[in-house]
């Protein structure tokens, strides 16, 4: 660890080293606390500051949309972002670094659940306060969280297992249609499924079940792909899974009782921010557990040398099947959440464009890494929202960015890094860094 820091500081410019030293002793909880303070400040003085800086309203996504629409407002937006977010977070983080380091030292002794819960609650509070300002923020945030689930589940196949699967939109649509059909059938008066069968109050209790059933539907779909394509290695999976995606799409286009090409709309509004957040936490927790166990690492063994894995008692076929179904399950759950967030789905939602988005997030963020998936999903998702005013040019800038990543970091931004919660929340000391 120490060696790595030393090595990387050689090739980074001096300024960054100094910046890293300056910020290096702030523990995660202090960062989160700073974030919380900054979003609270925004709710209090955001409007006043925005009008002071000549902005029409509070910049919704870090001022980017505003600045692109009216370039003259760029300085105002920059000033807003640096005062409200950057300055506040750094200032609060730096001031509270010492007490939070002491706290972190204590917390690391406790059972891991307690500090993790504290961090997650703080993180959720930040999101809640931040997204309270506008509905658009809330929607963007929810879609970003769902994108993390999708990216992470695809990373299991494309990153950890090293195969190339193109069927994620297909799994997502199976989950979305499965969950939507159940919820609409039971809880909504709808032209497709008729009168609601159960009182609406039961909806929130059935929602998790519907999501899980959607995930199971996706996993069953995955089984159809897995049986023929895992007999051998190579490009078969890519081809079969691409075909699967199109089959699922045209299946839903032609199933009239599922709405046909017009899709299903009017899903109950159950995927609120806490629900999505909780599902995301469960998803990250379970996937991270899996990929850090020997059973999960068997995927890496299969990817790097399948024959050696077999010779070392690893049941490679089972390993691949389990991982594939597991990934499809989470894609299905993400699809169900997506359907209930947007509250309208049709077969076109799950086409090639979505595939391109998910693949881009996986390869941008980094293969074989939970961090990578989070980074990739958040950055690309926010970026594509922020660049929305550029319309068509968005699709020039984002691919260009991807090409640059492929040139300079072929495996993605944060590839092959283990997501170790304990390491994440441990206290940060300057002296350690300088050794």
């Amino acid at each position: 660890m120490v060696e790595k820091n030393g090595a990387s500081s050689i090739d980074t410019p001096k300024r960054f080293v100094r910046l890293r030293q300056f910020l290096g002793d702030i523990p995660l909880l202090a960062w989160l606390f700073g974030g919380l303070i900054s979003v609270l400040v925004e709710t209090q003085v955001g409007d006043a500051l925005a009008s002071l800086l000549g902005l029409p309203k509070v910049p919704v996504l870090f001022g980017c949309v505003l600045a692109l629409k009216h370039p003259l407002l760029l300085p105002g937006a920059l000033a807003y972002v640096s005062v409200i977010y950057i300055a506040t977070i750094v200032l609060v983080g730096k001031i509270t670094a010492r007490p939070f380091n002491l706290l972190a030292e204590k917390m690391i002794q406790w059972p891991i659940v307690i500090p993790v819960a504290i961090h997650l609650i703080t993180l959720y509070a930040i999101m809640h306060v931040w997204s309270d300002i506008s509905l658009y923020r809330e929607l963007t945030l929810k879609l970003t969280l769902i994108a993390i689930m999708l990216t992470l589940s695809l990373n299991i196949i494309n990153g950890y297992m090293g195969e190339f699967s193109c069927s994620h939109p297909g799994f997502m649509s199976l989950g979305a249609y499965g969950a939507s059909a159940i919820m609409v059938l039971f809880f909504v008066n709808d032209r497709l499924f008729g009168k609601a069968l159960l009182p609406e109050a039961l909806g929130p209790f059935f929602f998790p079940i519907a999501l899980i059933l959607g995930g199971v539907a996706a996993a069953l779909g995955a089984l159809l792909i897995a049986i023929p394509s895992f007999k051998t290695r190579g490009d078969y999976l890519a081809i079969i899974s691409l075909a699967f995606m199109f089959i699922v799409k045209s299946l839903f286009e032609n199933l009239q009782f599922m709405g046909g090409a017009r899709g299903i709309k009017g899903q109950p509004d159950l995927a609120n921010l806490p629900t999505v957040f909780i599902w995301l936490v469960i998803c990250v927790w379970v996937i991270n557990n899996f990929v850090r166990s020997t059973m999960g690492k068997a995927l890496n063994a299969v990817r790097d040398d399948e024959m050696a894995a077999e010779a070392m008692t690893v049941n490679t076929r089972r390993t691949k099947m389990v991982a594939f179904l597991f990934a499809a399950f989470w894609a299905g759950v993400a699809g169900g959440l997506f359907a209930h967030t947007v509250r309208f789905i049709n077969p076109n939602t799950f086409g090639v464009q979505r595939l391109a988005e998910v693949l881009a997030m996986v390869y941008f963020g980094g293969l074989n890494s939970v961090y990578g998936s989070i980074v990739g999903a958040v950055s690309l998702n926010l970026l594509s929202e922020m660049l929305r005013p550029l319309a068509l040019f968005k699709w020039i800038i984002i691919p260009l960015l991807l090409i640059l990543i492929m040139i300079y970091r072929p495996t993605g931004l944060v590839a092959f890094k283990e997501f170790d919660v304990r390491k994440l929340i441990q206290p940060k000391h300057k002296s350690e860094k300088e050794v």
Partner: protein
Amino acid sequence: MSLLQVENMTHYFGGLRAVHNFSLDIEPGQIRALIGPNGAGKTTIFNLITGIYTPTEGRIALDGEEIIGLQPHEVASRGLGRTFQNLCLWRHMTVLEHVMMARYSRLTYGLVGAFFGTPRRNREEAASRSKALELLELMDIAHLADQTVINLPYGAQRRVEMARALASEPKILFLDEPTVGMTPEELDQMLGIIRTVHQELGLAIYLIEHRLKMVMELCERIQTLVFGEVIAEGTPEEIQSNPKVIEAYLGKEAVH
């Protein structure tokens, strides 16, 4: 009863007869070697016994149990460990992960454990870890446990592979040219390692080797394979003086 018994094994690749009428008997704790010129079919024999190929004819029994038709991982978990000629390591994994991976078939926590991190999983992973560290200690590479294997020198990689093969707790160990590409110094170390493994763990060892020094020092019995057929079998001395072997394999070297 012998530990590994191969009877009249024959294998064809299409019309090519790669192995013909091969028989083998290994007793517990024995070290035996298979020598032969390049392309004689030595590695094919390894792959046939370990289950990567299925022989066209013949039978193979490990510890009295028929193993033909089993998947390679099933054969491996019944007690047959192996190393590879060209170091089949997993390039993105650390040394410790390599050795722990070979204990895959001994994990009983199942998918529930893997997904939810149950106490049972933590217990088993911890046990597997300490066992792996023991083996790394035995191979003298415990200090490299957290290194990624591709960063290691060749000799250390060989040791990792050996530790990995031992981690599945085999009864018999197949070594496919364990000293290929080694300097004389490394070769001596390897010899030491194989001896340690043999003495401390009491394993039977079956090895393919090109370097006769190694074979002559280690083995009790040697088979010589030429074009898929065993042309001679016996103690090192017998093999060295066998005219057929000299003709086919040792050739001019023995004449000088």
